[in-house]
């Protein structure tokens, strides 16, 4: 009995002591544990290759024709900025991104979303269905479709011919424009969905109030809608741009970066250096520079986002 009475309070004391000493850590551990595998996976499969890539960019590693690679410092980067083909690729990447992502996908997506706010349900379903189909198609399939559209005996020329308009070989005369259009065709759905969601978030009362005050469509768009979806615009631009910067399959299928180097954007240039000319080190350095281009775009968008509404 006495043992029992002496022992009895001991347990709660010990328990409270433990719990008062470690509640935070234990809970932290309990909460953190599930995240551990994810972190390990991220480190292993995401951070690992990136770090390895960054390392390779400073070596002269080749895919073949070389027994040992060595550290070459910034040589690859210096070589890139002296390489006319690289500068050409940077320029084409900017053209491609501005044309297809900033101007094309973004504007067209917003327009479609705005128009569909007012459209009847069947029209909405039909248009949405078509646009999203283009988006769901694998990049390579989309590439082949648009290749068939633009090629010399393709659909576009057939239509132009039927209208008695002059035809031309689009993939040869205007390759960068053709692939930009292809990217707009393929990627607009994403912008459209983002903007549809954003437009739905705008309280009806505000638009109605403006309407009552006599604001026309353009005024409402300019003074109410756009400022209110500003954050979505920023996010959409950023995601679109990053996606567009890394487009490879579409251009590869349609033109392989040709003719000449006239549609060779950075991802294609990188592939050529790394895998066709076997210069993995140089190709990786170009890949890092592509990351920098993406980061620059992101910074610009983030600054745009930060300015007060």
């Amino acid at each position, binding site marked *: 009995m006495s043992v029992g009475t002496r022992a009895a309070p001991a347990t709660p004391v010990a328990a409270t002591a433990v719990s008062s000493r470690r509640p935070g850590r234990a809970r932290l551990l309990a909460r953190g544990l599930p995240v551990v595998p994810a972190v390990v996976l991220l480190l292993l499969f995401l951070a690992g290759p990136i770090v390895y890539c960054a390392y390779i960019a400073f070596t002269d590693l080749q*895919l073949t024709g070389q*027994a040992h690679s060595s550290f070459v410092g910034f040589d690859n980067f210096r070589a890139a900025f002296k390489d006319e083909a690289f500068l050409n690729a940077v320029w084409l990447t900017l053209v491609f991104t501005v044309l297809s992502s900033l101007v094309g996908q973004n504007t067209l997506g917003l327009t479609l979303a705005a128009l569909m706010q007012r459209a009847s349900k069947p029209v909405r379903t039909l248009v949405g269905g078509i646009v999203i189909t283009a988006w769901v198609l694998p990049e390579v399939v989309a590439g082949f479709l648009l290749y068939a559209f633009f090629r*010399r005996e393709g659909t576009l020329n057939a239509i132009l011919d039927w209208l008695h308009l002059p035809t031309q070989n689009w993939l040869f005369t205007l390759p960068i424009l053709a692939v930009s259009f292809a990217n707009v065709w393929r990627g607009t759905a994403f912008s459209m969905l983002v903007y549809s969601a954003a437009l739905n978030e705008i309280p009806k009362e505000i638009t109605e109030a403006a309407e009552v005050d006599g604001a026309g469509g353009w005024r409402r768009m300019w003074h109410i809608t756009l400022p209110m979806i500003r954050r979505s615009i920023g996010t959409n631009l950023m995601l679109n741009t990053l996606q567009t910067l890394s487009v490879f399959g579409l251009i590869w299928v349609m033109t392989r970066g040709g003719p000449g180097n006239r549609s060779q954007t950075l991802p294609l240039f990188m592939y050529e250096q790394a895998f066709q000319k076997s210069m993995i080190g140089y190709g990786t350095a170009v890949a890092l520079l592509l990351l920098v281009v993406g980061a620059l775009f992101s910074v610009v968008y983030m600054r745009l986002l930060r300015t007060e509404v």
Partner: protein
Amino acid sequence: MRPTATPLLLATLLTATALSACGSGSGSSPDTVRISFKQSTDNSIRVMDTYLGQMKKEFEKANPGKKVELVPIKAPDSEYYTKLQQMLRSPKTAPDLVYEDTFLINSDITSGYLKPLDAYLDKWPDWDQFIDTAKSAAKAQDGKTYGVPDGTDTRGLWFDKGVFQKAGLPADWQPKSWDEVLSAARTIKRKVPGVVPLNVYTGKPAGEAATMQGFEMLLYGTGDGKTDPMYDAGSKKWITGSQAFKDALTFVETVYKEKLGPDVSDALDPNYGTTVRGELLPKGKIGINLDGSWLPQDWQQGAGHEWPEWSQKLGLAYMPTQHGQAPGKVSMSGGWTWAIPSKAGNPDLAFKFVETMQTKANAQKWYIANSGIAVRKDVASDPAYVQAQPGIKFFTDLVASTHYRPAYPAYPKVSTAVQEAMEGVTTGDSSVDKAASGYDEELKTATDGQVVRK
């Protein structure tokens, strides 16, 4: 279950799978020999698949308990090399036996991807049957041999007799100079609309086909036919600034500027070679085609584009030298070899498989199946081989006046530089002079400055 349990379980499972996937390697057992080869991008052409399937059967029957696993790589040439090199880098992915183009073999040897075969070859009686040039095809600068050639190839002019008849050109056509080739093409252009007068592969999309079937067939036809116009063996340097190079480029420029060749966008289509063999030639849509000896493999029974009457429809002419100077004709040779990766798990078994493929009977079967040119003396002298197919004699005779590429480690990059120069003049983006000086610049980078002006 607490709500966290499910993701936790999932994550653990994922990690476990991922880690075990990393560690399990290729899973090659000591009794399995894994063989990588290039599968045609044209689904209907399965010449090699069929042949290797037969060899697999024969090998497995002769070696009970051993298995052959075929690992086809379906890709155009240039992507095949890339894929292969990536596989060769790691013991986990390296097959036991690979099909290597002589174009790249030196480069891969330098990288340490391949295993010297001398120990095997010394003990292999059949090796004596191989002609000497073939034996040296896969010999590295260290004097060791790294591959067993399964034939070679030569190149020439294929022409459509029907088109020639319409154009009023002779059925036994044999041009004596570049000008005669061009003038025949001009005649076809004038008199037979709707066909490509003269196909010359060009540009980066065509890859090595542009360099070898196109450019080098021209380049090696300049000069005296003895000195190498690309590589100076004496100084071990690559040649820049040569008139021969510009002359060859001028020929390419003329073909595309005068629209004697295919439409530029077709010529720069990466699958144009497949279209030429599979569609254009059988349909009589090409007048003259500068191409390789292997074309009939696509037209045989079971090859997908069966065209047995090709030998009545097409004529063969050798490619002449620039001005018809001695030796009058020019051809380039290459070919493929079977090589064993240095990281192969079962090299002994792999060589055994090579021996199976290279019995006289099997080698002969293969030469005939893929329209290859024999590199074994016993096959070359066998009347069954010579008569097996029209054209075999024509192309085998060209071996006497053929050239081999300077296939040193820098060659693949040099080849790309050639393709870029060709593409420049093909599209009209650059003049011959600009394209040639672009090549000179590229050459310096590609060879680490090992160039000499000639």
